[in-house]
């Protein structure tokens, strides 16, 4: 057993931390306040190869694997959850779905510019009546000769408003349902009939864009089918498994930031003639945060290692997402309590962190869904099939 990071991952973290502190952190409060996507940061991330961190070099990536990607998400989320959300939607689910199931031609055509950061991706699944129940989507794709015509409306699409390339799930055979009746497609945003609808006015991650997307008779070539016809649902779930791991990494970064702020505050804030660090109540809070963060860190990087070494990881990825989001939420809640009134003020980053953390318990599969996934896997090993 060896728990040390390789020298390339140590060097990668140093590079990313410097980037995060120099380029990302100074904008975090501003993009939250203005509710704008930091395109200048995304452009710089692309230029130095970080938007292709986990993809092989032959597809324009960096070749740092899932471990490298988790390092990126952890370090970005440590300073700005909006930026890590934009990046996660681009790499972790948008581009990742093409990497996992695309043909060699599709990878050359779509993945290469995405990995280089020349184009942006979104992963388009949720509908008004199909959230956790993803198989209940109604967006239709009908075959016409060598093309497919896609009709439907998708909601809560991260990066949807500016993505150049989206992967979208549509019903191709209503008689078959999730297994056999749903297909994934690659759609370019400049195709006729592709429209951006309303933008969500969100509680947190306000520096990320969440938009409605309307597919009004979008015609795509049969070459743009991602994976096999009828296997889109399975393909999308596979992508989400990986996405869950990196959400846990982002939760780790957010929790670490909450702990760092709390330590700094406990060292300087005096009450009753002593710094807060000398109060046992605060010591216990800090100790609990640090313990949960270390447990999460071990889980995140162990699962990243399992992905990189080709081991099954679905069950643990659900645990990483669930635990990461809850540790993140608890850590920022504790940090707010340690900071008192100042933590509640918009002049301090704790308040932003508090709003940003909450979404992690919801998006990319609610924590309730994660618990169902985990329990189903456990019961299956004991011969019991859980029906949704």
């Amino acid at each position, binding site marked *: 057993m060896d728990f040390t990071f390789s*020298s*390339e991952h140590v*060097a990668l973290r140093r590079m990313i931390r410097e980037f995060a502190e120099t380029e990302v952190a100074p904008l975090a409060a501003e993009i939250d306040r203005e509710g704008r996507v930091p395109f200048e940061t995304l452009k710089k991330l692309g230029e130095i190869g970080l938007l*292709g961190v986990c993809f092989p070099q032959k597809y324009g990536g*960096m070749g740092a694997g899932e471990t*490298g990607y988790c390092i990126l998400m952890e370090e970005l989320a440590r300073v700005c959850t909006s930026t890590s959300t934009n990046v996660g939607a681009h790499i972790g689910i948008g581009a990742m779905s093409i990497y996992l199931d695309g043909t060699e031609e599709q990878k050359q055509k779509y993945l290469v510019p995405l990995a280089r950061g020349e184009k942006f991706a979104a992963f388009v699944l949720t509908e008004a009546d199909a959230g956790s129940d993803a198989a209940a989507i109604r967006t239709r794709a009908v075959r016409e000769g060598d093309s497919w015509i896609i009709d439907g409306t998708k909601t809560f699409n991260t990066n949807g408003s500016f993505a150049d390339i989206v992967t979208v799930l549509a019903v191709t055979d209503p008689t078959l349902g999730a297994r056999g009746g749903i297909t994934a497609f690659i759609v370019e945003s400049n195709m006729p009939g592709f429209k951006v609808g309303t933008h969500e006015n969100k509680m947190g991650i306000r520096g990320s864009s969440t938009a409605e997307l309307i597919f009004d008779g979008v015609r795509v070539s049969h070459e743009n089918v991602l994976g096999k016809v009828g296997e889109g649902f399975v393909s999308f779930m596979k992508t989400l498994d990986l996405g869950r791991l990196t959400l846990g990494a982002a939760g780790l970064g957010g929790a670490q930031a909450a702990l760092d702020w709390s330590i700094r505050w406990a060292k300087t804030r005096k009450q009753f003639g002593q710094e807060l660090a000398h109060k046992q109540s605060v010591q216990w809070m800090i100790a609990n945060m640090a313990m949960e963060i270390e447990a999460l860190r071990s889980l995140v990087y162990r699962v990243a290692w399992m992905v990189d070494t080709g081991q099954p990881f679905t069950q643990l990825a659900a645990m990483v997402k669930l635990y990461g989001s809850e540790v993140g939420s608890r850590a920022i809640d504790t940090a707010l309590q340690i900071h008192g009134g100042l933590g509640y003020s918009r002049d301090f980053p704790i308040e932003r962190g508090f709003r940003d953390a909450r979404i992690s318990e919801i998006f990319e599969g609610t924590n309730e869904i994660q618990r169902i996934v985990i329990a189903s896997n456990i019961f299956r090993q004991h011969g019991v099939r859980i029906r949704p």
Partner: protein
Amino acid sequence: MRVIVILGRVLDPSGIVVKGKAGRIFVNREEYVLQPADRCALEAALRIKDAALAGLRPSQDVEVVALPRGPLPDDDVLRQALATGADRAVYLVGQVANLPYTDDAAAVRVLAAAVERLGGADLILAGATTMDTGQGQLGPRLAEALGWPQVVGAWHVAAADGRVQAVCQSSPLLVGEEGGGTSYVTVEADLPAVVTVLPGVLKLRYPDGARLINVYRGVGEVAEGLEQWDVADLVDMESLKPLLERRGQDFPPERERGVRIDGTPEEMARVVADALRQHVGR
């Protein structure tokens, strides 16, 4: 054209606490970063390469080679240089282990021999000062050892057509200035030359992601740029006896607490003016 850049490392200052009263430096996190001035020297070297690549002077092919400032326990700073865009780097092993108090006189003997073994160079860039020991001798000593002209304390450096141009902050004496005000002069020298670069002006670019992974993983063309030479093959080890002897350490006095001034602006100004007068009179 060959540009050599000399790089060293320093304990990350954010990981240490200096306690003068206790007479100790507490190392909370032992991590090393590139010397800040050497970072700027590396960026200066890469910009000279960029200018050549941009076709401004297509006849010149610039090769950037990184050498270590003194004895190093690992080749990390050299890999950083390769990841950031240097073409070659030479890790010198077997130097006298007198870290972290490097002896520039000894280091220069090794460097001069390394430059010779590389087949010479057109320009050598190094940081003007080190952050830990505050030394600025390496560049000037190296220039003297090689018999080359030197420019000390440059902010920007350009090189072409057998000459180097360095932008330096002018000394008020040099241009006959009265009082404050900063002006800059461009100093030129014939190549080969040694130029030392000040910290803080040139922002070192980020490494290229794929290069970084390859150079640390030890694969591909970039990693092949890392060579390892034994110091014993370059110089007589007996000649490397350090001139510098460390006899102890001292700390600057603790900063005194400030005083809070209250009152109307006029009253506060008077208090400040009195304090200044007293200070000047001392």
